[in-house]
């Protein structure tokens, strides 16, 4: 598995469209808040918080960024404010209980395997634990009442990607057009782009595609 991230759009920054017809007032207001008003911790305990931050760092590693996209603060806010998803899976506890239980169980799993806190493990050890959780191969009894794979996929991973791919930096790195109203797009067929869309770095793209 690669350790590095390669963007096909190294020169693209969706925020450069801020003042163009691709962005409207409400979108600017929403994104401004997301960029400038990162919330503080209110829900998780200090220990759970440290675990969550470490998990986010492994699920969405950002070694290429000096200023990584914040993920844990937004999850904390979601859970604190009880922002639901509309689905309470019968196999899992209710939202707030589920998150506390999950963070405690990950920490317990680290202690169970290494007798060290999760956030102090090295990345390889952390990944192995997360893979075990993903495969329902956990050893700690702290997982009782919390099917680890269901929690991992439907609660934890889902929340992390929903937060990460809501950030303009994530839009830029994948070449997503980003906000588009009132202006949408003109050129729809393959390999065509509007002047206000990301330009792909042909050599990088060819290399990446050859590797798939």
């Amino acid at each position: 598995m690669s350790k590095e991230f390669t963007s096909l759009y190294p020169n693209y920054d969706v925020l450069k469209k801020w003042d163009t017809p691709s962005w409207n007032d409400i979108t600017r207001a929403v994104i401004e808040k997301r960029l400038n008003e990162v919330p503080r911790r209110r829900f998780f305990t200090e220990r759970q918080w440290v675990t969550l931050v470490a998990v986010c760092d492994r699920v969405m590693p950002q070694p290429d960024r000096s200023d990584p996209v914040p993920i844990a603060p937004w999850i904390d806010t979601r859970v604190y404010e009880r922002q639901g998803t509309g689905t309470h899976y019968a196999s899992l506890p209710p939202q707030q209980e589920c998150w506390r239980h999950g963070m405690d169980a990950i920490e317990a799993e680290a202690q169970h395997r290494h007798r060290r806190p999760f956030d102090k493990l090295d990345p390889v050890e952390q990944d192995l634990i997360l893979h075990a959780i993903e495969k329902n191969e956990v050893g700690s009894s702290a997982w009782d009442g919390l099917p680890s794979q269901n929690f991992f996929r439907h609660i934890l991973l889902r929340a992390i990607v929903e937060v990460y791919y809501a950030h303009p930096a994530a839009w830029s790195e994948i070449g997503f057009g980003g906000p588009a109203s009132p202006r949408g797009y003109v050129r729809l067929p393959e390999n065509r782009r509007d002047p206000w869309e990301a330009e792909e770095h042909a050599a990088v793209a060819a290399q990446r595609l050859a590797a798939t």
Partner: protein
Amino acid sequence: MIGSERHLRATAGRAPDVFARGDWVPMRQFSDEEEVDFAIVGTGAGGATLAAKLAEAGFSVVALDAGPFWRPLEDFASDETEQNKLYWLQDRISGGSHPIEFGTNNSGCAVGGSTVHFQMVALRFRPEWFAQRSTMGYGRDWPIPWQEMWRYYEEVEDALKIAGPVNYPWGPPRGRYPYRAHEVNAAGLVLAKGAEAMGVKWAPTPLATVSAPRGKSPPCVYRGFCKIGCSTNAKQSALITYVPRALAAGAEIRDLAMAGQIEMGENNRARGVVYHRQGEWRRQRARNVVVAGYAIETPRLLLNSATAQHPSGLANSTGLVGKCLMAHSNHAVWGVMDDEIRWYKGPPSMAVCEHWNYEDKGKDFQGGYSFMSQGPLPADHAKGLVTNTGMFGMELRQRMALYNHMAGLKIVGEVEPREENRVELSDEKDELGLPVPRITFGFSENDKRLYKHALHFMRQALEAAGARDFTHTASTAHLMGTCRMGDDPADSVTNADGRTWDIPNLWICDGSLFPTCGGVNPSMTIYALAARVADRIKEMGARGEL
């Protein structure tokens, strides 16, 4: 969240003008004590259509919706997180062998209902499906002949100015769609190439977004955020079509009004609706009550309205309320293309193949499915990827880096109506004290054979179109059944007009009525049913049979 403050907007004799920023249209209002002809619960494809047509026929109508009344131009951001405000995000307990994902996946909470976020795919049921048991030997018959339903499809397609192909390649000839089909985006052309390689037909998807100006709606700008609300007003949602019609004809729309119970009066007749608005419980008196809350909230409301005479809930003497919930199988194949596809441009599903809805040979299952090209927004796509594969780490980020080279095909697959798939009331209560619904869902062996057939076929098609490095995802879409209509009072909840067998002035008008679900998106069938129910009510009203 910006723009999501929960203030009443449809009040003080006015309602939001959906075509302007900050502007209003006049609205007639009724007092709670005034006995209106119709109190309608829900303003989606079923409720709004019915409200408009009944108000235009001169009936007094109050339509309640639990959600807010948006002005798309100023309220809808180009942002997935912000637009969560369009969905029903209250907890529903989801169990069974394939628990359904609710919220953003299938449940709207706004004036206009799920049509505010729907993907605008405007397909008709195949004619044979209306007599499925009689002609095809499985499923159930509908109590309405297909010719009549097809006439109503025509009516609602014109009301929504559906943009569809000049010649639709499947089924009996249909009149030309009111607006021309849109240009097919690159993601749709992948489907086209795949279908042509597999020797099956394809078509530009008939869509409820205009391809040319219509009144105050400009044509679609292909911004691709359809699933989280159209800020162009090109999408012909109920919010900008039937709702303004209803208001203009004198109906009252009450936003942020959550119905909790239907109140029964004397002589086995409903007396009105108990609803929560602005922090208090209120009662709207009505001669007729129509429930149009979609396939979860409709049975939830009926079950929660149990009385001594109706101990298992209203209209539930058969025990069928909440039973036979159907959610289309929504499985998909995704692959990587050498071409830049940039599937974020244009409506998500611009090309469709209904081959396996109309071809009965070569199947190891009963039922049909359509499949469509895909264009999920980043977080939505990532969510599907991680919840299905458990992928994380740099592998996930690298996979997402190929976002603009991805293409996907996804089915809308028919599932069998089975009683074990159901909606019930749990012991948990929501913040208003109403019982939280518990939903149980799973696929039958036949359902599984269907989606496996589809995955196999779509993978071949995608491969023929030049894709590789495939992933499969499993999901469900749409909610149907739970209050099925029929000809036999012992075997259905309502008659063909949506009138409940048990209570003559209690009606149902939404996707709950579906006896079977077909292999197409349900919105047009819900609209058509509502248009028909309205006409039937007008006829009955004229004959004094209400």
